[in-house]
């Protein structure tokens, strides 16, 4: 079978799974729904592997195939196909998405076991995977936009999964609205591309673009900036990031899958996919790189002070995506994609471990209340530690190799790009500190009440049905979660999923060691080799030097965290006292929510109220009511005739006919 045939199968299975579970939710037993959902994604992953093998059997230069099932629209120069594009980049994304999704489905199979929306959950989750695969496999900008909007919807549906929680539905709406802002950017970019190049098709666009556009021409810059708007909204980069921390209202597997491993990396994929356009607009690429850098630093500082476990990890996600955006924007394409992959492994693992701990904490997420889980949940703790080490880029783990490769490339490119290396290492220090802040506050120490109970009785404390964010009591009668989840230590499927990810997070970096092997770089090389930036290669020596610095910074960060949170636990409070203004800034997330509220939300509301008071009241209401009044008045006149007297009707009839007859008589004579 050809590569494209396998790729179509990759798309088919999640769609079938979603439809089967979605339509059969009344008849399917609960476990069957979970099994179907997991199996669908696993089959999809298998087809992804088959696509990869088919592709590897071909000549590297010939590894790109377009295939189309049918034409959407084909008229007046418009040619939109339901087409996919299979090349190393899309296959790479397919494998990351389906691989991690399979494990997260397996985890959800256990974790969501007591949830009354179990089937709905798997239907949504499969739909999400389908949308994400559509996004990465799309062969033209129209289908890309479709996939882009689908994942936005899936994200909304899953964030608001516990729809009786006002905080969850609010967060879902926020995510949806901000994502739609990005969608608008993407759609406008596609329109501009069509206006300038007359096609939506990837291959045609990428061959025509260098012929049509001069470097840094304003149209190509505008196209790239609009693409970036889409990418930044989806990937939660400044200033469109505020939805991501709120999205943590969704169930933890959703946070792991959508808001850590896959969907939020769509922006990175988009920049890598359209690198031909960004090569023509270096200014836009630099803008992207600087925003990525700003995000990685800002998010890192916020993660230092967050006390909500999931939100802290969410800020860390933003920060890591910042690295990827920097990578693909400055030209370190394969390094950025490599970091995307390793991040998917260790961040999904961290979220899974966090979900397990939150379940043990009866749904409370405040790390101030957690301690001593190291003894209570050995497996989960080990996984949290592995995820933490990989995130902190501890030497040997996957994050160690991927992050430093981006920074080494920036250094090799030279010029002002060295700034990315320097500040990237600052970000790495922050990463190590905030990661191990979480680890050291949760794992060691005197077990908290919940951990104690787990050690003594082996039972997870019973959760009260209340919203952890507001303390509001929740209605459990309508299929609301009852907020009971399972912990990994007592659940086979969760253990398997986390074990596999833990293994990958530890050794996933070994596929690309400078000077030893270059699996991902070599595989993705045909996609990026036409870029002028692909010429830049850091020397092996420089890379190892970078790795050395990175490793030292990571260990230093872990040591600082150890000092603050284990050796001298009183110091953070003193530091907070000393640096009160900075602490306030971080705790309030740099006031981005307030800024957006002030700049966008309030003006929009004011315009809305003004329009409601004037335009709506006088113009719209006037028109509608005026029409109604006219009709009513005319009806009043006609009513007079309808007297109900049969004889008056007869008189009118006869008089009418007589009049007509008279008229014709007179007219004919």
């Amino acid at each position, binding site marked *: 079978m050809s590569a494209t045939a396998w790729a179509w199968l990759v798309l088919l299975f999640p769609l079938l799974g979603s439809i089967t579970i979605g339509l059969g939710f009344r008849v399917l037993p609960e476990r069957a729904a979970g099994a179907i959902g997991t199996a669908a994604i696993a089959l999809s992953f298998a087809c992804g592997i088959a696509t990869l093998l088919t592709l590897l059997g071909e000549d590297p230069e010939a590894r790109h195939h377009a295939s189309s099932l049918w034409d959407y629209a084909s008229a007046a120069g418009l040619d939109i196909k339901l087409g996919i594009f299979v090349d190393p980049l899309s296959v790479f994304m397919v494998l990351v998405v389906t691989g991690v999704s399979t494990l997260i489905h397996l985890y959800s199979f256990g974790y969501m076991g007591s949830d009354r929306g179990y089937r709905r959950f798997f239907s949504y989750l499969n739909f999400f995977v389908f949308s994400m695969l559509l996004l990465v496999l799309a062969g033209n900008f129209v289908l890309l936009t479709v996939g882009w909007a689908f994942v936005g919807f899936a994200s909304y549906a899953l964030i608001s999964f516990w729809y009786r929680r006002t905080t969850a539905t609010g967060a879902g709406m926020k995510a949806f609205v901000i994502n739609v802002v990005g969608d608008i950017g993407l759609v406008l970019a596609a329109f501009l591309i069509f206006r300038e190049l007359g096609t939506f098709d990837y291959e045609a666009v990428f061959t025509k673009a260098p012929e049509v556009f001069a470097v840094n021409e304003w149209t190509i810059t505008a196209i790239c900036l609009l693409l970036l708007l889409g990418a930044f909204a989806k990937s939660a980069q400044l200033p469109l990031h505020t939805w991501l921390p709120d999205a943590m209202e969704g169930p933890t597997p959703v946070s792991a899958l959508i808001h850590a491993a896959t969907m939020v990396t769509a922006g990175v994929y988009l920049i890598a996919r359209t690198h031909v356009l960004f090569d023509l607009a270096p200014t836009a690429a630099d803008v992207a790189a600087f925003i990525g850098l700003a995000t990685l630093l800002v998010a890192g500082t916020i993660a230092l002070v967050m006390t909500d476990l999931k939100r802290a990890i969410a800020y860390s996600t933003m920060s890591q995506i910042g690295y990827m955006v920097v990578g693909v924007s400055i030209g370190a394409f394969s390094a950025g994609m490599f970091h995307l992959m390793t991040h998917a492994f260790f961040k999904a693992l961290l979220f899974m471990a966090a979900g397990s701990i939150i379940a043990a904490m009866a749904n409370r997420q405040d790390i101030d209340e957690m301690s001593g889980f190291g003894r209570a949940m050995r497996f989960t703790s080990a996984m949290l530690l592995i995820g933490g080490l990989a995130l902190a880029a501890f030497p040997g783990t996957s994050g160690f190799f991927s992050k430093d490769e981006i920074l080494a490339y920036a250094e090799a490119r030279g010029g002002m790009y060295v700034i990315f290396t320097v500040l990237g290492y600052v970000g790495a220090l922050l990463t190590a500190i905030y990661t191990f802040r979480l680890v050291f506050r949760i794992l060691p120490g005197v077990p908290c009440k919940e951990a104690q109970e787990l050690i003594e009785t082996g039972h997870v404390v019973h959760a009260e049905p209340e919203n952890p964010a507001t303390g509001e009591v929740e209605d459990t009668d309508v299929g609301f979660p009852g907020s009971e989840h399972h912990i990994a230590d007592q659940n086979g499927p969760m253990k398997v999923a986390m074990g596999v990810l833990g293994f990958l997070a530890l050794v996933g970096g070994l596929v690309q060691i400078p000077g030893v092997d270059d699996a991902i770089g070599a595989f993705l090389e045909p996609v990026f080799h036409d870029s002028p930036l692909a010429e830049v290669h850091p020397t092996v020596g420089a890379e190892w030097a970078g790795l050395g610095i990175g490793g030292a910074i990571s260990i230093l960060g872990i040591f600082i965290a150890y000092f603050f949170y284990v050796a001298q636990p009183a110091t953070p409070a003193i530091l907070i006292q000393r640096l009160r203004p900075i602490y306030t800034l971080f705790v309030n997330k740099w006031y981005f929510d307030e800024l957006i509220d002030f700049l966008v939300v309030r003006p929009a509301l004011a315009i809305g109220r003004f329009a409601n008071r004037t335009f709506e009241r006088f113009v719209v209401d006037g028109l509608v009511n005026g029409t109604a009044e006219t009709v009513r008045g005319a009806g009043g006149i006609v*009513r007079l*005739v309808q*007297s109900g*007297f*049969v*004889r008056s009707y007869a008189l009118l009839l006869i008089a009418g006919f007589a009049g007509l007859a008279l008229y014709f008589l007179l007219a004919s004579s």
Partner: protein
Amino acid sequence: MSIEWYIVLSSLLFATGAIGILIRRSPVVILLCLELMLNAGNLALIAFSRMVGNQEGQVFALIVMVVAACEVVVGLGLIVAIFRRKLPLDVDELTELRG
């Protein structure tokens, strides 16, 4: 015989029917008057048909008779229904349909 007499007779019958409808209040009589008007029309149709010399007018007259029969069925049915419901048999008092 010239056609004028037929037309005059037809007109007289028609006028009688029309006036009857306008001045009488009993539904039965109104129905009778309607029949009178229809048959005035029939008479005129047949007279003209003879004058022109083909059968089309007569076909029309037959159709009018069928329609008249149907109309009588419905009309009498209505009258019986009104009677059964003990409503006044007076068209001026049956003003339910007033708009």
